[in-house]
């Protein structure tokens, strides 16, 4: 990995002691008894707080909180593409996904690492089907997602957050995108896993463990993103995606409310005439 010479990084061979701590109890419980630490049912999501229009200088923005997972998103644009070679009659969407350095148990770097770059790509693939790119030719829209605190399912939360921010920015869209993820064990599916429940390649040695994240456009009933980790049985993967689709449908009104609420707030405030 390229190191940043302008910043003082820790010694290269140091590591965070928390990597040696594994919440074994939660993992074992979920695998053996099918019970979750916070007492949720397998198909139950964490309570969601969602608000649009929180960054005043951005064209659109949103904030989502699912218990301890907290994600913020800002949308800028459409603005002119300056580079000549990137000319396109369709609009462009760029996504940048970043974990804040303090957001995970292990400290993150300032620069985007491979995982974050991968998430950025996935966000873009998931949002592109929902955005009317033909409406802003020769221009681009920038989506910036920052995870402030990560307690599982960061990609799903970012998807929901980013699509609400896009709607809040007034970018024309076919539909909102709702994200949902699921942890798949050899026998069961758990919706919306926390960090200690989620699949980790270094701790889950048996086959059949994994996780899946899905993005759905509810009113069109189209899947705009699907991604999975780990090795899972086909039937359970199928079951997992179906349950995610159902959950996304149920969450849709929450997003609609957030978008509508932001419009009401804007109309009633004095800044807009």
């Amino acid at each position, binding site marked *: 990995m390229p190191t940043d010479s302008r910043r003082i990084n820790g010694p290269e061979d140091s*590591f965070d002691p928390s*990597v*040696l701590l594994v919440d074994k109890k939660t993992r074992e419980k979920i695998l053996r008894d099918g019970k979750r630490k916070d007492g949720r049912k397998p198909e139950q999501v964490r309570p969601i707080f969602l608000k649009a229009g929180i960054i005043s200088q951005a064209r659109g923005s949103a904030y989502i909180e699912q218990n301890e997972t907290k994600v913020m998103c800002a949308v800028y644009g459409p603005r002119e593409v300056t580079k000549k070679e990137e000319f396109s009659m369709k609009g462009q969407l760029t996504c940048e996904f970043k974990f804040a350095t303090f957001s995970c148990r292990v400290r993150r770097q300032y620069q985007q690492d*491979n995982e974050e*770059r*991968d998430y950025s*790509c*996935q966000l873009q*693939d998931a949002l*592109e*089907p*929902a955005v009317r*790119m033909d409406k802003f030719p020769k221009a681009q829209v920038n989506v910036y997602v920052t995870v402030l605190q990560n307690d599982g399912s960061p990609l799903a939360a970012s998807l929901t957050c980013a699509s609400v921010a896009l709607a809040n920015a007034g970018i024309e869209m076919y539909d909102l995108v709702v994200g949902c993820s699921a942890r798949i064990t050899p026998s069961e599916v758990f919706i919306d896993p926390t960090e200690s429940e989620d699949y980790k*390649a*270094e701790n*889950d*040695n*048996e*086959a*059949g*463990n*994994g996780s*899946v994240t899905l993005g*759905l*456009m509810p009113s*069109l*009933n*189209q*899947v*705009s*993103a*699907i*991604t*999975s*980790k*780990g*090795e*899972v*049985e*086909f039937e359970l*993967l*199928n079951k997992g*995606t*179906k349950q995610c*689709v159902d959950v996304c449908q149920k969450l849709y009104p929450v997003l609609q409310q957030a978008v509508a609420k932001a419009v009401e707030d804007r109309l009633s405030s004095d800044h807009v005439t």
Partner: protein
Amino acid sequence: MAEVDLSDAEKIFIKHGVQDNCREDGRGCEDYRHIELETGLLSNTTGSARVRLANTDILAGVKAELGTPSPDKPNKGRLEFFVDCSANATPVFEGRGGEELAAEIGNILTRTYDCPSCFDLEALCIIPEEQCWILYVDVLLLECGGNLFDVASIAVKAALYNTKIPKVTVSRDEGLVELEISDDPYDVQRVEVQSAPCIVTVCKIGHSHVVDASLKEEACCLARLTMGVTERRTVTGVRKEGSGSLDPASLEDMMQTGKRVGELLNKSLMDSLLEEERQGSKKKPVGFLK
């Protein structure tokens, strides 16, 4: 990616063909093109393979190095992927042009191999917390003719199968650890690839879907699904790509197809690898002359 430009009429022609299960080159929707495979053709590597599928040509080399295991996985070796897109394939890849595609292929390979149950990293550990083998898998893209992900994964699996790591004996002398590496070319350790996944890319074209899309077909495809499939018919690392979206029902169909095709692909790959091994030194090396 290396792309071709098609007119609307050409796209419609391809779409209609796919709909009737007859593709532009006469294949059915679930047929692969002819695959050529040769392993052990690079003498400076620990294992290598070259795969050619129509015009797609990919060379994979494995280098084994000694290193320390990462602190969160003290009893496991490491597997690292690096993909390089040669400008020989298309001038677009010159300089940093191929980086995005290379990262994409690398990420997908990492993701599909990132499960302890499908690739045994513990066998690569020599002394827990101190010494392990690190396998650097380098994938070189020599020519692009569509369906790069599948071919890359076949090349990687074949190169890993071909990998022969020298045996290491550990002796402890008054607290000092000594590693002795065998120089006998037959005293080697093999890498277990039986349960390693192959990637299958299913492209949605019109209302149907195809596997092993050619460059022209890739130009007609808005959404594709890449999935790692193992011999046990389990699925590793699914991912939807492209700017299109999919109906939940057709998503399920595509995953079914991917699973079915992947199972066959794994089986025929293992068969050919075993067959090649059985021929042993009697087999004439082909190399790059063909």
